[in-house]
């Protein structure tokens, strides 16, 4: 397949366009999306598909999700933009109590084909209402699938799969990553939900991560290589379903693992992954699985504070060195 350099945001437009051309039932709704969205992640959709399929919503987050739900169970396939992930809190009742539970609590009568798109992670110097990583809040709710790609190619393929999926999928696109460019296959394609990828093989230790920290992990590996440490990176891409097979096969080899995310370490998804690894490979592990995540504070505005709270490359390097001992 021929590739083209494009930004993460453009790649998601690409995926949406392929999907919408193929299936009339797909509509997109969210605040200000006909102007392209805050990160250009909807650019050009209005022009191609018109205001019937690309709907600018009032600042009514609860309505965005509940309207999507009503539409989804009556024959449409809504892609709902929640803009910044922090704004999902205003629709958390709809997301958790309704969207996630609808299929189950009604005994499988309906499926709920909704994609919830939200820009997550730290937005440099934007403080705590515009910087957070909430994946565990979605992952800890049976009935929701959750994906968090780390590059434009996966962004396209995973969004295509998410839109094709009959279950609600929370699609997390990191704020600092939207503008990042990479080669992306031009044709239509899928990355299946629930498949991790080995972003870099490594003999000595396995770093397990997703979203923007995957890029930081690769940087960390380069630094570690200089120190003679061969660290590998598993990019989970999907959090629910979670591809523990790839994780366990890899860690069984390296016998050392570090889990990294931007979310708060305390109660974050890293604890789940670390626990599953430990449960499966207790005998094989040489050291306890290390966890890298944000320190326990809302994300502050001021640069040195933000850097102190949000984990960076150096934190990953330090964690790897710690487990290697």
């Amino acid at each position, binding site marked *: 397949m021929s590739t083209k350099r494009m930004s993460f945001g453009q790649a998601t437009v690409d995926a949406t366009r392929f999907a919408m051309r193929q299936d009339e039932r797909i509509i997109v709704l969210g605040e200000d999306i006909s102007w392209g969205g805050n990160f250009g992640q909807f650019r050009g959709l209005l022009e191609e598909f018109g205001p019937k399929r690309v709907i600018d919503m009032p600042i009514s987050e609860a309505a965005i999700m509940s*309207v999507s739900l009503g539409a989804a169970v009556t024959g449409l396939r809504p892609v709902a933009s929640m803009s910044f992930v922090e704004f999902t809190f205003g629709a958390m009742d709809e997301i958790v109590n309704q969207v996630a539970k609808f299929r189950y609590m009604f005994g499988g009568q309906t499926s709920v084909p909704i994609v919830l798109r939200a820009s997550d992670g730290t937005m440099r110097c934007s403080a705590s209402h515009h910087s957070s990583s909430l994946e565990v809040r979605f992952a800890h709710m049976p009935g929701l699938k959750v994906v968090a790609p780390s590059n434009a190619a996966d962004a396209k393929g995973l969004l295509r799969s998410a839109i094709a999926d009959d279950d609600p999928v929370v699609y997390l696109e990191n704020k600092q990553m939207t503008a990042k460019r990479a080669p992306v296959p031009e044709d239509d394609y899928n990355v299946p939900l629930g498949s991790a990828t080995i972003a870099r093989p490594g003999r000595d230790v396995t770093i397990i991560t997703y979203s923007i920290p995957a890029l930081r992990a690769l940087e960390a590996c380069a630094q570690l290589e200089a120190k003679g440490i061969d660290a590998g990176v598993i990019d989970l891409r999907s959090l629910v379903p979670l591809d523990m097979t790839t994780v366990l096969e890899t860690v069984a080899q390296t016998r050392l693992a570090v889990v990294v995310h931007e979310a708060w370490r305390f109660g974050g998804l890293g604890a789940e992954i670390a626990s599953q690894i430990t449960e499966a490979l207790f005998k094989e592990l040489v050291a306890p699985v290390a966890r890298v995540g944000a320190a326990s504070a809302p994300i502050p505005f001021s640069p040195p504070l933000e850097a102190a709270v949000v984990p960076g490359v150096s934190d990953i390097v330090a964690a790897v060195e710690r487990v290697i001992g």
Partner: protein
Amino acid sequence: MATTLDGIPNEVALAIHRRMVRIRAFEEYVSELFLQGKLQGFVHTYIGQEAIAAGVCSLLDDSDYITSTHRGHGHAIAKGIHLNQIMAELFGNVTGACRGRGGSMHVADFSLGMLGANGIVGGGFGIAAGAALSAKYRGTNQVSVCFFGDGAINKGTFHEALNFAAVHDLPAVFICENNQYAQFTAGGRTTAVNDLAVRAASYNIPGVTADGNHAGEVYRAAHEALNRARAGRGPTLLNLLTYRFGGHYVGDAEVYRDKQEVEKRRALDPIPRWEQALNDARILSADEATTIWAATRQAVADAEQFAQDSPFPQADTALDWVFTEAADR
């Protein structure tokens, strides 16, 4: 069609009656079952409000949508779900409308456009708006009706959904079943306006108050709102005044209201009123009414039998239906 009751076809008037009786008979029976300890969880009965579900749903097709509330049996029955399936759901049986996953507060039948009772107050507003958006998008003639309580009108979701529905002139009707109470709290104590219909003005849509204990008034108010919706002229807010005869749930000690108030309101029972009207109009004789009641009571008893004969779901199916693919278990 003959229309003796100013504007309501006789057949429809009778259908409304049958639906009201079915709801009443079911709810009285279910209250009994609950008090006998045969049913678990919460049961909120619809007794006293039957004219609303019956009157409104007499104007709907199977393909039209409704959203319901925690007090949803009446809506489920009026929209045509079989009593067996509702009863079995209340028992948590695999033969129930939701295969036992939902229980009393989550009865649904998507094939009949009944998009679910809902345990979250105010949960239905946006779902109904979304179904209406979908109908409009697909260019069908379907409408979407949202039933909700006078307590629910203070949820933010009311505001968000009505504004959205109004902006898009969606084929939706928002029907407040104003039974004067939200749980134990009388409406006036927590709601800033008396006439809830005035809230329609915030969305530039019609707001109409009518007697929700009179099937004819309900029918006429709903008729106009539904016509408006189907004609593409947007949503309406109906404020239908009613009263729940029972407690908030079966077993409620009702310390918050006095017996006299309840007695006074019971005098306005929508079913005898409608029977009288039908009788006056010579559409339904007293004998016919007696027959209907008896047959309906039998159908409810049969529903219990159906439920008693039905099995529980198998424990090893507990993770079915979380996702569409079994692979995701």
